[in-house]
């Protein structure tokens, strides 16, 4: 799955939790979920659960800790998909 395709699939998962719409519109690789999109850190577990469901993968705790920005999240999803 290409990076672009993953991001397109990721956007609607993240959107309900976003508190900064402007930053969400201008999403880049380095966009941080907490500091840029103002997502409540408690909600990161909900995003990870939704990613697991949408991509049919399982994300371990170590990987989850790194999923704080777009770039890392895409990389982890790619890695998990490749491992299947």
């Amino acid at each position, binding site marked *: 799955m290409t990076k672009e395709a993953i991001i397109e699939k990721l956007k609607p998962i993240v959107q*309900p*939790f976003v508190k900064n719409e402007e930053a969400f519109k201008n999403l880049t690789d380095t966009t941080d979920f907490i500091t840029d999109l103002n997502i409540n850190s*408690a*909600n990161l*577990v*909900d995003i990870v*659960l939704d990613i697991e469901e949408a991509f049919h993968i399982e994300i371990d705790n170590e990987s989850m800790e790194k999923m704080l920005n777009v770039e890392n999240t895409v990389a982890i999803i790619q890695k998990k998909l490749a491992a299947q």
Partner: protein
Amino acid sequence: MKKRVVITGLGIVAPNGIGLEAFTHAIKNGISGIEFHPELERLKFSCQIAGTPKISEEIKRNYFSELELRSFNSSGILYGVIAALDAWKDAGLTLENNDQPDWDSGTIFGSGTSGIETFREAIYKIDAFQTRRLGSTVVAQTMASGVSAYIGGKLGLGNQVSTNSSACTTGTESILLGLERIQNGKAKRMLVGSTSDSGPYIWGGFDAMRVCTFKHNNAPENGSRPMSASASGFVPSSGAGALVLEELESALDRGAKIYAEISGGNVNSGGQRGTGTMTAPNPIAVQKCIRAALEDAGIHPNEIDAINGHLTATSKDALEIENWTQALQRKGIHFPYINSLKSMIGHGLSASGSMESVATVLQIYYGFIFPNINCEDVHPNILELIDENTIPKQMIKKSLNVVAKASFGFGDVNGCLIFKKY
């Protein structure tokens, strides 16, 4: 010198009316909110009738964001937040997002359990080794203080934000706790009240104790029969009631509408000694509680115009009436008017005291006594104590100066409040 405390806002989510207008209409006209619940029949409950407020998806969205409603399944928090926010608005207070906490305003909002449906879902997941899939809101929905936490966050309350719990006395106790906090000068406004979850997982334990009626599954509206000779147990119910208590000076400064004054109150326990047990009240404690509430309020027993009783429609109703006659030293035709909201909405458990207090305050503000339905056959033991005319079966229009409200709960706990016309 204690500060005077008045009620400046009310909110209600009851089985027979959501919002003040619908609820006031219902209680004036003796409209029942009790219905047959097919789910209780399917689950083989003895009592298959109950009271549940009907909250549409549209109403929900006026109080909660889409994000908050994700995986949200806590009827108690739903009812509590709606009642609380309505009371706040009714008091003319702002709902806009404040950047700073409102240090002078707090909430004590009671509950018996929280998010029992969410708790059930979580237990199934945990037992299926799915703990990591619980999501982020199980704690907030199932912690006992879930309801006050949601309310506090929505209103930006910066004073005490807490939940009390004392079985069926919970709602009455929450009001007393808020009253005392303002009297003592520790807050200017306290949003008080209580809520109860709805559904089989909250009602099942009572059904198992055989304290709910099983004789009215075919006639739900006739099922809740406080003070009746044919009363055969209470009808389980749910909902929430909320009151904004405010320091008199603050209310006058704001030019707020004043519904009534709370003159005083008392809570105590019979210690499960004497004839008191986990489930039965010690009459000495009940009478002491009522007398202490009057003393706290500086009110003579003869000044009481009406009583809003606990009166659940079990065999204990006659004992409650006897306790009132003893505590007030008034009987026969000299007994005050007495009514039970439970005849219309059943027993709201932890929510009962606050829903019934909202009804009590509406009676004082609008000058009426709501009817007792389903007691055309008053219990003979009650008629030995008080005159039948003190038990209205039709609404009475009457200016009320002082009304007493009491609640009694498991654990042998008691609460009594004295409301007064302002």
